[in-house]
């Protein structure tokens, strides 16, 4: 996993916004390929191929995020402002954060990273109950933040 994350860091990002597909095993699954209307995700045959992202074609639109059954796709933007970047992630837990809400962000192991502000929440019928939440965080955290702390019920 670590090797793959470093590879993601290194990929040149002309538009400074990109999808990150954290799916590194050969499992039979290809909805992400169909979801991308720009053809930026390539799986081909057999469908166990690991998805490859074409950075030139990726616009960071985020359609792939809700369509991945494994919730393994994120969209990161490094220059939301001079100091802030954003991470968009799928969030299928209640309570769903609201726009403007301050949240505690978590890394891949569920450990606290930093505070962030929710800048967008998208829920549409085509996302089929997988809302996509965009959080603004310090730019240097975009490759670390992958979750939001849920308040204990």
């Amino acid at each position, binding site marked *: 996993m670590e090797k793959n994350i470093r590879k993601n860091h290194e990929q040149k990002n002309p538009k400074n916004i990109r999808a990150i597909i954290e799916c590194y095993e050969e499992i039979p699954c290809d909805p992400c390929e169909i979801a991308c209307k720009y053809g930026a995700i390539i799986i081909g045959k057999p469908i166990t191929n690991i998805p490859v992202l074409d950075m030139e074609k990726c616009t960071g639109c985020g359609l792939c995020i809700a369509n991945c059954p494994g919730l393994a796709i994120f969209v990161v933007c490094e220059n939301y402002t001079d100091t802030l970047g954003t991470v968009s992630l799928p969030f299928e837990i209640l309570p*769903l954060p609201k726009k403007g809400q301050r949240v505690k962000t978590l890394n891949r192991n569920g450990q606290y990273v930093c505070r962030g502000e929710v800048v967008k929440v998208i829920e549409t019928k085509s996302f089929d109950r997988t809302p996509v939440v965009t959080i603004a965080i310090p730019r240097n955290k975009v490759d670390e933040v992958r979750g939001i702390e849920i308040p204990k019920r």
Partner: protein
Amino acid sequence: MNNRIVEHPILGKIDDKEMVTIKVDGKKIKAKRGEMIIAALVANGIRINRYTLKKKEPRGIFCGIGQCTDCVMVVNGRINVRTCITPVVDGMVIQTQQGLEPRRDKIE
């Protein structure tokens, strides 16, 4: 105690199905019409369905699909009713089973 999942990110808000009243070891509890007996019990914090005959050990749900018989209780006088696949009916009388009869010694 209410262990019902009232709001769920995928399943939505719980439906407001009609409630009925059933008796469990003499105590009245509310259940949703047509739900499995085990659901009504667990919703009310009741996880013991029966006690074994010889060692008087407690047993509760294990497989949840009618295969293991760990969840059987006495229902309207009938023993060995699998509560995980039997729906509630208004006025149903349910008793903790011990061996092959309703449990008599209630004091633990």
